[in-house]
């Protein structure tokens, strides 16, 4: 094969190897669970009075403690165990919302490292 063509093939091969490796690590980097430590707390239905909430885990831990408050009064609490990549919807009875109108309902979740997240709705 002519020298120039060999050189071109070599450059193409170097680029291919480089790109393959970069694509591979990008796939890992964009994986929400790979070498990451975060989790989220959110309401399942953000616009309605429903208090069902979702914990989504992408952290190294798996244990979460949740607490539901009406104003400053704790109404309910519980524990959730989630592996990385899992999420869980905790259902709250509609009666809780109905019997606590005109109050701020807060969901506080704490993970094993004592990191806290909270969401709330000021019920009409």
């Amino acid at each position, binding site marked *: 094969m002519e020298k120039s063509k060999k050189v*071109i093939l070599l450059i193409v091969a170097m680029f291919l190897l480089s790109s393959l490796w970069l694509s591979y690590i*990008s796939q890992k*980097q964009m994986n929400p669970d790979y070498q990451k430590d*975060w*989790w*989220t707390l959110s309401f399942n239905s*953000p*616009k309605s009075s429903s208090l069902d909430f979702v914990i989504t885990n992408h952290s190294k831990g798996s244990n979460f403690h949740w607490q539901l408050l009406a104003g400053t009064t704790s109404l309910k609490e519980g524990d959730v165990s989630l592996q990385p990549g899992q999420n869980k919807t905790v259902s709250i009875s509609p009666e809780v919302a109905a019997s606590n109108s005109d109050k701020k309902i807060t969901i506080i979740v704490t993970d094993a490292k004592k990191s806290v*997240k909270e969401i709330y709705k*000021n019920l009409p």
Partner: protein
Amino acid sequence: MFPFISSQFIFFLTIGLVLFLPGYAIIKAIYGKKTPYNPLEIFLISFGVSLVTIDVILILLGKADVPLTRTSILTSLFTFLAICLGIFWFQKTKTNQAVPKEPTRLSFSKKETALFVLLMFLSIFFRTAYLKNTISPTATDLGHHMYWIKVISQTQALPEYTKTDIVKENEVYKIGTPQKIEDFIIGEHLFLAAIQIITGFKVVSSFPVILLYLTDLMGLLAIFVLTYALFSRFAFANLAALFSLFLLGPLFAFSSSQANFVSGGVVGNLLGNVLIPLALYFFYRALEEKQVSFLVFGIFITFGLFYTHHLSAFVFIFALLATFGLLFFSPEKALADLQEIFRLLLSPAVLLIVFSTIVFFFFVLMPSYIQNNAVQTVLGAPSRSTKEGLSITQLSFLTGEVRMILAILGLGVLLFFKNKFHRQFALLAGWTGMTFLMSWKPTLVNINIPSSRIANYLVFPAVIAGAFFLAWFFQILKTSDKKLFLKEYWLVASFLIILLFGFTGGYYDNTKSLKENVSANSAVITYDSAKYLTTRIDKTDLILKDHNYISNDSWMKIFFMRDYNFPLTRSFFFRYEGTNREQCTFSMISDPNSTFGKKCFQETGTNFVILNPTVDGGQFEKNKAFWKIYDSGSISTFYLKQ
């Protein structure tokens, strides 16, 4: 693992099909077996010509109302390749050409070949090292561009570059009608869209960065090939080309206009960095070797440049005009060149390509920035300080001090020996000088463009001029009279000092620019906050996000695909100062409880706000009307319950 490998195989096959085969087929159709190019030149030209060809094919498909799908794009490409193959076969059988020997152009010795391979390896190595933390789809500019790729993919049609914004009518704020966006040019998106549609890859993935990485490498080769072409008649041509690769490849590998632009998604600039030197290469060879085919290719590439990046086209035109003017430093030679140019222009092939491009321009599709009269906005006195020109220090920093010094030396030598290097001087001095002038004193050339953007173009002609100086200097050393012993040692010493200065400067810049943190870590969290809302909102809901304290937010629009400007954005604070810009997006996050803030919420219908709670959460938590519905720690989403 197998799905990954198979997807990558399809990806690289598609790159070959879209970005190399069309150009290669055209070369073979025009020249047959005997081409006036070395295989490396064919490799580069195939890429550049394919970039323009795929744009033309997709524009023709789109304008003919043919849906842009995998089937239609592949069918068009294969039809095109078949036509070119037919022409090639017809030529082959007609002329009975013998297989030509490899041309003596770009013929390197073993050592030179090894050095070339080493320089390319280092160029690829440093870029890989930089991109490993920035390869994921996170950059703001790239997010904006990839929105349009997804629009093309979803609508299966050419994009209409418009966006909606908050407008004030009769003291009432509302979402206005779609307005045209001047900053996007179709050529920036079509090749990306073609590859995305054929492969089916997710838009939010690394494939666009990989394609820009490839474009950056082809830009290196374009400068390498152009440098060789400029000095091909001289003994130091190979050396000059290798020095250009040395100054551009491994040194300053991460600076703006190189790997920084790759990860930043500065698509148009990177494409311009290939097409500008390629066009100059063809024009130069047309004049030098008096061959019509070079001029045809030069016009084709220039035509493509106008559909790819307005700023690059603008810089190119100015550089070309300056080059033309400087040819007249040697009036007799200039007149001979002028005669030759006219002879070439009047040839049937050139007239045909010029006619075709004019018909395409006026009757198929005009570039958006010309349709929208955006050209007049870039002419005139600078409208703000960032367009008033950079200092020499700033220009040196952007170009790289060592490259700047070498370029000055190179241009000095070219000027001194301008009779010997008549055309080379005109081209390099014109290109460098005009770009320098546009970025240093834009008022002198009556342009109104951010000076740092123009300055990014200075690197390339500076590298060629600097490479010429080093090669010419080295040639002097090699052929110097050995009796001048002491003088030779002084020359060698100063040469080594220049190289050392170059190494340390270039690698210092590399180490300074390396990113330590993986950009994807914050991006994943940002994208999650967008994904959360995509399934929980309807068409009446309006979202506002912050750009100042949320990373990678420009990609959020790709999850919603409602409008280029959805979600609305609180932009950088300086953009709201002393302008006619609407202030609602600023106040709704900065001061949501003010009378004006509340007015904006009510009148625009904005009811979701995505922000960084540690900076902006406080003002929302004070207001009972806002519910906090999502919390990831670094991002919170608030809902305004009406």
